[in-house]
């Protein structure tokens, strides 16, 4: 799948392996999770309200439109999380009972 974000500088950082929906990808040290995903893919997640896919919006932790998930159901705010080696994330929540939760 083509990427959404384009790196314009700072590309000589150390590569890090992460997994997105079980597929291995190379990110760069210092990337946010959102950037690591969107430099490989066009979207980040599905809207829980069936109105299509999303790719984040504010990048500053305010809109919450970039939630991703770990296999054990932990929610990760992709725009403020920094990638770490071996990180493994899902674009959809692993179980149905996670949404809705109270804000």
């Amino acid at each position, binding site marked *: 799948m083509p990427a959404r974000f384009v790196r314009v500088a700072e590309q000589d950082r150390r590569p890090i392996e992460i997994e997105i929906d079980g597929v291995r990808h190379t990110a760069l040290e210092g990337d946010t999770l959102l950037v690591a995903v969107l430099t490989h893919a066009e979207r980040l997640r599905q809207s829980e309200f069936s109105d299509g896919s999303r790719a984040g919006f504010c990048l500053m932790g305010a809109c919450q*439109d970039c939630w991703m998930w770990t296999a054990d159901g932990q*929610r990760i705010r992709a725009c403020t999380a920094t990638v770490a080696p071996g990180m493994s994330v899902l674009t959809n929540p692993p179980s149905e009972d996670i949404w809705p939760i109270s804000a």
Partner: protein
Amino acid sequence: MADLRVVVVGAGPAGIRAAQTFVEAGLRPIVIDEGNASGGQIYRRQPAQFRRSYETLYGFEAKTAKAIHDTFDRLVGQVDYRPETLAWNIYDGAVHTMRDGVAHKIPFDALVLATGATDRLLPIKGWTLPGCYSMGAAQIALKAQACAIGRQVVFLGTGPLLYLVSYQYAKAGADVAAVLDTSALSGQIHALGLMTSRPGLLAKGLYYRAQLLARGVPVHNGVTPVEIEGTDQVEAVRFRTRSGAERRVACDAVGMGFHLRSETQLADLARCAFVFDEDLAQWRPETDSDGRASVKGIYLAGDGARVLGADAAEKSGRLAALAALQDLGLPVAVRRMDVLRREQQRMEQFRRGLARAFPWPAELARAVADDVLVCRCEAITAGELRSTATLKGAPELNRAKALSRVGMGRCQGRYCGSAAAEILADVRGERVEAVGRLRGQAPVKPLPLSAVRGAAS
């Protein structure tokens, strides 16, 4: 004196100057910031692995950025700095924080809220498509991650950031497909007269504009956005020019924003009184000339009090801390306060100039078509919101929120609130201030699931 508890929320220019002022007075403030590094929005730092220079990152503001960073770095050890910590509520004279799922209660004698701003948005058909970002997001991608949000980017909206971010993209080698400003150029030129207290800002804006034109980037003023087109991602922007001609620009990304809105939830939770700011058409916490809120012991500074930009943020941070020190009965240099106060007062005119140059396009928000999503969080349309007023008779925003859920989603109305108020006011035939404002709710941002579960059990 050493056991006086002073707390600063926000480590942007306002919070950093407030913290520094407390340290200079011999106190050890607690500084809380959600980010993993200090600096705030304008002086946001890049991660440690990045190597770009201050000049590349901050342009004209390189020197100030370095001064702010150095100031805070020198305060290490003299402040109790708590990064990656969310202040999520204020009650019973204490700030409630969360870090890594661990809650803390921090009682205070004085609290400076320097929480900054977020982009002010209004819905445009297609704004939820992947590829559409807030203006601030476009800048953060570039500044903090050295990425462009797409290959061909349209910048759409109004405000000083429109030209700055477009220019930063062009300079970084990104393809800026068009810059579409809803404000008229004539307003920006007229406003120069009102901006004498800080002419630099508009002058820089006009410089960025000229640079964009010189690079062959189409810049349109006085546009009406029609639609962000695309089936499952951004493909083009359609808009009407000032003369009414419809145009289409192909692109794969959009950065949009209509200036900024203050981040005021914490002041609200602390029960501070609010006033309606006619110039900016938004509510803000009421303060005196020094930043004292209506609630004893609470002070407001920076863009979180009123959107005046980074230089004013530094000054108001200092002033708010001095006011707090004075109220705590500590000696302060009254002359210094006078100077800061006068400088802040001069900002009043600047603020009006800003509103004249980049007016909030209320009429666009009011005209949003029924099928357009107003609430990104829960996919609620303008039509559904309108029907809460017409069919269900919602008299004001919080009632409309309860009935439609607009503003109830996880962004807590940050991105729909301004437009929702206009839409509701329009249906009710009232001025926007008459429909009230969305009240802040705790937690101001969603807490980690583990913390939510912990609180529930």
